[in-house]
């Protein structure tokens, strides 16, 4: 009896070890590639910048203070949040019906359409942005089209509109894919049941489907928001040097200015703000709908 228990305990320990062996490498990778740089970055952000020494060991809040006391940087953050919120809203607005149609499509068409959604992901973000540049620039397709049709120039290049269009086009596939799989899990019969009980399709969607997919949509939107907050190539190439967002600013401080401590502080501020807003947005979702 006692031996049995001991054996059971042993085998459980063995199981635990086996599980650990499987989880171990992944945990190590996460620790090394995610946690370690973060800790390092946190340490750097408290250092002091030096032109000749790169940085001077210190524990000072001055990099953070510099950000929060300078209206210029706060303005950049405001722009970043504004662009991220707007592009996320647009993404959800465009992506929702798309994902819905996709989820309810006959299987043979669905494959083709899914491929159509995924295909842009095969092209790097920079290449795609260059595509947008050709489309939006003076003498580009949009310009030629509007000049021919309405005799007005459409200079979208280096405008906030271009940035938002670029970010939305970049994020939409991710959002559609995520939401599609969420919608996919909602039984068609639920909608039909609602309709049979007298709810027109739109009402059936809002009363029955929406509460069920809300957590999934929220996750997709959060992903979209995080991607937008951290957008780099799109604001640089489509927004131009005069359109300032956090990621390009951060890279400028790190690369061009070599100010690693301030760049590290900017990274933490960007991350913290994104996290905070995400938590806040999650609180807006009614508790009973939460995942």
């Amino acid at each position, binding site marked *: 009896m006692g031996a049995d228990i001991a054996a059971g305990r042993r085998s459980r320990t063995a199981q635990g070890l086996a599980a650990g062996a499987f989880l171990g490498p992944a945990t190590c990778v996460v620790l090394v590639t995610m946690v*370690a*740089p973060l800790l*390092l970055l946190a*340490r*750097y952000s408290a250092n002091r*910048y030096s*032109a*000749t*020494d*790169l940085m001077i*060991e210190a524990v000072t809040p001055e990099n953070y203070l510099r950000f929060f006391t300078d209206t*210029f940087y706060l*303005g950049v953050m405001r722009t970043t949040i504004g662009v991220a919120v707007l592009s996320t809203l647009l993404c959800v607005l465009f992506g929702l019906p798309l994902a819905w149609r996709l989820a309810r499509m006959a299987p043979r068409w669905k494959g083709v359409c899914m491929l159509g959604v995924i295909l842009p992901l095969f092209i790097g973000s920079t290449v795609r942005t260059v595509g947008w*540049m050709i489309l939006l*620039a*003076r*003498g580009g397709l949009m310009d030629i089209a509007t000049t021919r049709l309405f005799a007005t120039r459409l200079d979208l290049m*280096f405008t906030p509109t271009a940035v938002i269009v670029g970010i939305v086009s970049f994020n939409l596939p991710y959002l559609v894919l995520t939401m599609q799989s969420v919608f996919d899990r909602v039984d068609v019969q639920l909608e039909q049941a609602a309709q049979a009980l007298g709810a027109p399709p739109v009402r059936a969607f809002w009363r029955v489907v929406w509460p069920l997919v809300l957590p999934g949509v929220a996750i997709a939107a959060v992903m979209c928001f995080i991607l937008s907050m951290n957008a780099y190539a799109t604001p*640089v*190439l489509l927004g*131009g*040097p*005069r359109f*300032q967002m956090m990621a390009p*600013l951060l890279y*400028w401080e*790190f*690369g*061009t*200015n*070599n*100010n*690693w401590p301030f760049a590290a502080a900017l990274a933490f501020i960007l991350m913290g703000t994104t996290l905070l807003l995400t938590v806040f947005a999650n609180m807006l979702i009614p508790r009973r709908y939460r995942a």
Partner: protein
Amino acid sequence: MHDKDAVRSRRRMLLSRRQALTGAVAIVAPLAAPAVIDSAARAQSSRIVLTTWGGDYARLLHENVEVPILQKEGIEVVQDLGDEAPRVAKLQAQRRLPRGASDVVSVQAVASYQLAEMGLLEELDATKVPNLKHALPNLGTATFAPHIYSPQVIIYNPERVPEPPTSFEGLMDPKYAGKVGFPDINYIYAMMAASIYASGTTSDMDKAKDLLVKLNANGLKLYPTTDSAGPPYKSGELNVGLMWLARVVMWQNAGIPVKASFPKEGCVVYISGMVVPKNAPNKEGAYKYINAMLEPSAQQGFAEHMGYLPTIDNAGLSGKVAEQLALPDPAPKLIPPDLAYVSKMQPELAEWWKKTIQHG
């Protein structure tokens, strides 16, 4: 007692610094790892690691320097490609390692000065680089061998601008309102151009700031990359601007209707070259590389394909290249940047540029 404390605290400092450094290496490790691992073995061998820009520049180095000259001597070159900013960062991060990842590194003159100030660069041994004696004066330093250079000129579209501006002041002419621009990354050179116009040197930044505020008010257009500043001259978005002569030549060859006008007050020059890090594992090889890059045949190749001026006095350009790169008569004033001043001012200027010009 007092001393002991100091020693202990210094040791602690050292320790934490090393920790920070190891971390810094970890950050750039994905870029540097392969080179770091075999750098010990490489020291004795005939392999050189060159850290440089990608694209045409790397290709031309391969075709004009590495294949025809170094390969014959049995030297193998590994190119480690990327932008300048991460390259500089990498050198800084590796500075306390006994063996660095790179033997020879391409940088602009300004960056080379900053690296030298930090004490990261080996002083070049002229006896091991015989071709250095042909290098043009004022372009290089004790730690920096110039490779190519190009003056910053006023670029214009001759179809829409029959009479091009002949000085920086011309760019502020209201008739170019909204039709004047340059790449944002060249901001510091634009400021030097303004400074030269104001006081004949590259280091009068107070006046340069005023001039750029005025230029900005004239509808200055900024472009995120150098490449993206070319097509606007064709599409009609730009009429005039500031650009390297080399780029003007390249764009001409690409069918963009542009010409160069040399400002009468003088042009600041862009200089790019090579440096040897103090912890380069194969310094002998690095010297051989620099010597090869200064060979006339190699310099001709760069002039022909990229439109940069040779940095040696015996390049012997001929034919179409010589014609395209011929400087006007009387020869324009070519002014190398005051590296010490620019390096010192860069953080402040960057901040000012960001807040006043970009944002304004």
